[in-house]
């Protein structure tokens, strides 16, 4: 329909035909002075909607266009002039990117010729290509953003990137991204009036989840395009009075996390392509947010795992079945560096890590473990210091997914200390066993040694009771005394032994000759004492030593020398002391029976008695050695059968 023809003239008919031939949506024709001749109804509506102006016949086109924008006016006027001069058609484009006035137009002008081919006017047509322009533009923004988003690894940065690269490029006055926190949507990024800096928003905008179009979108999880906010009851002026609005939710894993909200002061500003673009951007954002959060969670988890792994004193290494190093902890790295001068790196091969001599063993055990059999390897590694380092390596099958190469974990533990402790424990156990045996032996021997004279005493009493011969009874009584003395001496010895073991060493300055006098005093009632000639030779008189223990030693040696004196010559005992470097010697020499060389090695054993003549307990020399050792000293014996014996004690200063 072309209702606005002013006159049914031939020219008008020609204009009408020309416009119809154009076949375009918006049409008008001009006379030679660029005045409006005809136009269609649609064009009148479009002009009214976009500019608010009314189009009428006879109107100068330049005047009409002056209201819209200078770019449109200049484009039209320049191209009309070209057509007038060249008398041929022109096609041209213009785009206005100002917010509120965003428009993209493709226009064409054809000359209208009258009789004799005289130019009588212009037939004009134009299409509004704003939507197509937007589609192209939005598509390129979208693909740009998709690639950018991949490189972003923080949610906040992602939101600002959407703002800068999408929202700011949409010729909008205002656009915001709000993220859900509890029951409120809070401003996370903004373009336009709400932005105050590179990465800052003007104020803390909060919207309850059930308020306004944004709230509605957030609670329903569906995007919304409202091109006439005044007619929509959900509208609530969030920051400025918008005429049209589009809002899309950012939904991660089915949960609304935020809303992208764009507003325009112009009614009907948004096309469905806006909504589609924002929906797609929101989807890309959602995917990326999930990835970022997952990565973050993984990183956190990895951090915890590493913290655990790195804080243990053990080395962990993860290999696949081909010997590729997949993971290791700090201890492993440090140990390999220190012991083998190998710097571990992910992806290294076993042959780059282990010395050749360990490689075959490693591969065998790796294989065994990959088949599900955990196994252990003990490695003794000699350090440069020649010290042995003991390592226990556990090969354990590690979990892996189907289709992946089997994996094996190596746990490397330093067992050097453990080994040492084990050895100490073994030694201690051995000692304890021996002590227990000694103790058993000791108890039986003591009980025997006490019971033997006791049973003699009981036997003698029995004989005394039975006997009537006074001489006999006298003999038995004498024997009773001997047996009783034997018990007494035995108990004394045992006490000496116990005291030596239990009493703390208390050293003091003492005189050796005084000590000898005390010992002689004690032994003076011993059988045979009166026969002995004593000789003293003091190379050192005063010593710093434990007097109690020294007395045990001297008493033991002198009483032995008296007991085992020879009956074939006058018995003599020589006591000497000698000063040496850092130590001193005490020796007791006799001219007694002597000790057979085969008996000398057992001399210091507990309860050893070399001769059947010996009346002693078998403890004396054992106690002597124990006492000397408790003073960090040594005892030596030199003896010849039938010539005599010399005991030499060496003690430290």
């Amino acid at each position: 329909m072309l209702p606005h023809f002013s006159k049914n003239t031939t020219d008008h008919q020609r204009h009408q035909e020309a416009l119809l031939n154009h076949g375009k949506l918006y049409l008008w024709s001009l006379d030679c002075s660029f005045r409006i001749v005809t136009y269609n109804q649609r064009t009148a509506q479009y002009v009214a909607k976009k500019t608010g102006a009314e189009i009428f016949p006879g109107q100068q086109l330049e005047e009409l266009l002056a209201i819209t924008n200078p770019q449109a006016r200049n484009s039209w006027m320049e191209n009309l002039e070209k057509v007038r001069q060249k008398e041929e058609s022109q096609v041209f484009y213009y785009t206005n990117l100002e917010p509120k006035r965003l428009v993209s137009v493709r226009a064409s002008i054809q000359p209208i010729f009258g009789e004799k081919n005289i130019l009588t006017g212009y037939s004009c047509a134009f299409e509004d290509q704003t939507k197509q322009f937007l589609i192209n533009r939005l598509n390129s923004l979208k693909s740009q953003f998709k690639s950018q988003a991949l490189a972003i690894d923080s949610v906040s940065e992602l939101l600002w990137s959407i703002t800068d690269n999408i929202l700011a490029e949409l010729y909008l006055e205002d656009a915001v991204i709000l993220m859900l926190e509890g029951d409120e949507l809070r401003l996370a990024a903004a373009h336009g009036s709400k932005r105050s800096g590179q990465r800052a928003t003007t104020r803390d905008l909060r919207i309850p989840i059930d308020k306004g179009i944004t709230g509605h979108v957030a609670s329903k999880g569906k995007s919304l395009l409202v091109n006439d906010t005044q007619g929509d009851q959900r509208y609530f002026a969030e920051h400025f009075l918008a005429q049209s609005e589009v809002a899309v939710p950012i939904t991660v894993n089915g949960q609304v996390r935020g809303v992208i909200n764009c507003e325009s002061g112009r009614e009907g500003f948004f096309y469905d392509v806006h909504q589609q673009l924002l929906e797609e951007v929101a989807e890309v954002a959602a995917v990326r947010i999930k990835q970022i959060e997952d990565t973050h969670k993984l990183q956190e988890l990895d951090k915890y795992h590493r913290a655990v792994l790195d804080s243990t004193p053990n080395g962990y290494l993860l290999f696949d079945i081909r010997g590729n190093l997949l993971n290791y902890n700090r201890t492993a790295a440090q140990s390999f560096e220190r012991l083998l001068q190998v710097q571990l790196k992910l992806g290294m091969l076993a042959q780059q890590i282990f010395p050749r001599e360990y490689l075959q063993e490693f591969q065998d055990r790796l294989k065994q473990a990959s088949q599900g059999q955990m196994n252990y390897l003990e490695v003794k590694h000699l350090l440069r210091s020649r010290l042995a380092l003991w390592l226990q390596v556990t090969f354990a099958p590690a979990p892996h997914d189907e289709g992946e190469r089997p994996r094996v974990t190596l746990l490397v533990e330093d067992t050097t200390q453990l080994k040492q402790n084990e050895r100490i424990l073994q030694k201690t156990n051995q000692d304890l066993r021996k002590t227990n045996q000694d103790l058993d032996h000791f108890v039986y021997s003591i009980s025997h040694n006490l019971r033997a004279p006791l049973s003699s005493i009981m036997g003698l009493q029995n004989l005394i009771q039975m006997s009537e011969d006074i001489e006999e009874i006298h003999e038995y009584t004498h024997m009773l005394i001997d047996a009783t003395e034997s018990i007494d001496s035995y108990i004394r010895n045992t006490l000496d032994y116990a005291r030596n073991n239990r009493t703390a060493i208390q050293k003091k300055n003492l005189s050796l000759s005084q000590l000898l006098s005390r010992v002689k005093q004690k032994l003076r009632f011993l059988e045979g004492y009166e026969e002995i000639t004593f000789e003293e030779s003091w190379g050192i008189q005063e010593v710093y030593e434990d007097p109690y223990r020294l007395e045990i030693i001297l008493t033991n040696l002198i009483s032995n020398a008296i007991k085992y004196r020879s009956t074939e010559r006058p018995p003599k005992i020589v006591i000497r002391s000698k000063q040496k470097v850092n130590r001193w010697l005490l020796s007791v020499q006799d001219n007694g029976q002597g000790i057979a060389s085969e008996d000398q090695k057992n001399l210091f054993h507990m309860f050893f008695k070399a001769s059947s003549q010996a009346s002693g307990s078998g403890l004396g020399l054992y106690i002597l050695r124990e006492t000397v050792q408790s003073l960090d000293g040594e005892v030596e014996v030199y003896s010849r059968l039938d010539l005599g014996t010399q005991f030499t004690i060496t003690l430290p200063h």
Partner: protein
Amino acid sequence: MQVLLIDDNPIDLLIHEKLLLRKFGDDTSILKSKGGGDALETLDSAETLPDLILLDIKMPVMDGFEFLEELDKRPFSARLKIYMLSSTIDPNDLLQAEDSEMVEGFLEKPLSLDALEGCTPSSP
């Protein structure tokens, strides 16, 4: 009737001699050895073997068991009747004495006439 006493303790030798004389009569011949080695010498050189041997376990140099080991090598050992005696309470000694085929019985010190009751010589 001949008895061999083997003991390192001279008092015990005397006690045992007196008790045996009381039990078997004054005409009993008592031989005394101070140790295993001494006893072996006595046995090796004896014209007739003793009818009874009382053997102490705990003796220095050669104890009762070592003596039995040495005795075992001699062909006449099977004809001897041996009682072991000791004041020991070591259960191992008792077990070892019981295990020995040569030992007739085990007597505890101090010996008494009652204890010698079941102790009989090898030949009547």
